[in-house]
């Protein structure tokens, strides 16, 4: 489904991705962790070309993303992206947020879109918030609307960039629950997160990045209990004491 081959990226002189090789199969749930600034966001933002890279190859759903003539708009419709800061459209209700892309990209009619929107909001447990504006919702609710917005396009892949980092602790659970359910339903997911519990519950693989390098890749239990590298051990020690 996703295949990085020797991908390199620079921000000016800063080398942020160094020879990254990574494959994610359909239905696989991959958790990406690592210290701040290690390039996790950059890595998953490459998958829908919110970031471009300079060297290497990246195939997503068989589309070559290193080839700049690839029509990224069509591919993006197949990939849901959930941001740390939600980025809901503030001038639209929760329902409108969810139905915007289905109506304007998939061109489905308004009635079907509304039905679909309610369905997706129900899936994230927010049936009663369809007509609320983002500013009237808590952080956890906003993030769940954002997930519903992604799901409304029936994506083949869902990407999450620290979806719970901006939330108050008591709201993290409700968002993770939705993500766990999604993983169990067989969605292909790449999740940047430090939530070890979530990783242990549903991740098939945990990936550890540091300074632009993909240092480790293994099962959650193997990674958290017996990290192979010192840098990963130090990192795990830090999130445990957190």
């Amino acid at each position: 489904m996703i295949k990085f081959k020797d991908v390199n990226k620079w921000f000016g002189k800063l080398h942020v991705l160094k020879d990254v090789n990574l494959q994610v199969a359909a239905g696989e749930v991959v958790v990406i962790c690592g210290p701040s600034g290690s390039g996790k966001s950059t890595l998953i933002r490459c998958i829908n070309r919110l970031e471009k890279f300079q060297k290497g190859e990246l195939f997503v759903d068989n589309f070559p993303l290193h080839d700049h003539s690839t029509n990224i708009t069509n591919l993006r419709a197949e990939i849901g992206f959930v941001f740390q800061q939600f980025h809901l459209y503030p001038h639209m209700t929760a329902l409108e947020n969810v139905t915007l892309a289905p109506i304007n990209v998939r061109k489905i009619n308004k009635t079907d879109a509304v039905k679909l929107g309610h369905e997706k909001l129900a899936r994230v447990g927010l049936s009663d918030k369809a007509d609320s504006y983002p500013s009237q919702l808590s952080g956890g609710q906003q993030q769940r609307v954002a997930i519903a917005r992604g799901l409304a396009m029936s994506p083949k892949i869902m990407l999450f960039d620290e979806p719970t980092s901006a939330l108050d602790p008591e709201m993290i659970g409700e968002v993770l629950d939705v993500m766990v359910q999604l993983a169990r339903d067989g969605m292909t997911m790449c999740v940047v997160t430090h939530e070890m519990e979530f990783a242990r519950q549903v991740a098939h693989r945990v990936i550890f990045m540091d300074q632009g390098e993909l240092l480790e890749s293994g099962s959650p239990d193997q990674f958290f209990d017996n990290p192979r590298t010192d840098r990963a051990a130090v990192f795990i020690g830090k999130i445990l004491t957190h």
Partner: protein
Amino acid sequence: MIAHYLQRLVEIFPFFLKGLWMTVAVSGLSLILSTIFGFLLGTLRAGNSRILSGVIGIYVSFIRGTPFVVQIFIVFFIFPEWGIQLDAFPAAIISLSVLGTAFLCEIVAGGIKAVEKGQWEAAASSGLGPIQQLRLVILPQAMQTILPPLVGQYVLLIKDSSVVSVIGVIELTRVGWMTVVRIPEGLMVFTLVGILYFSISYPLIRLSNNLERRMAVEQVRL
């Protein structure tokens, strides 16, 4: 004497209405053109192309840095040198639109840039094309910032339209000058001219103030 002039003024009042109509026509048309081109150039100015943005920036600086009278003279006298004959009316529309576009373009670009980058990213990620991102997600939010100064700029444009009297367009100000020759009561004549300008700009000023207040409230909601 005053009563006599007042009566004369009443007699030729239809002439003033014609002038007012010309002012409305000239500023109205320029306002529409400025809005269209202002949004087009403003979008490009806020866009990713440094070159386009830079070129538009130079145009804006030139318009800001030169007196409007000079711009009108350039359009009216220099174009014929290049073989382009222009009547006073189209010359007035062109120069006013070039002026209005420059100011509106900066307002629009400012409004677009004030929208968080994450909004573009969210819209793009959901599969919306660049034009859809702008139309459905960015502009509706940018309008909050754009609308109040936009309407304010319309008022300025109406006032600036008085300058096109110099190339012989018989609009309100010109009518004032032509009347003063016959009725030497400058204060009276130009008070009337002022009142007529005010009658079209005041509703816009009110609108701008209202929008400002409404947007401030919505800003809180967002």
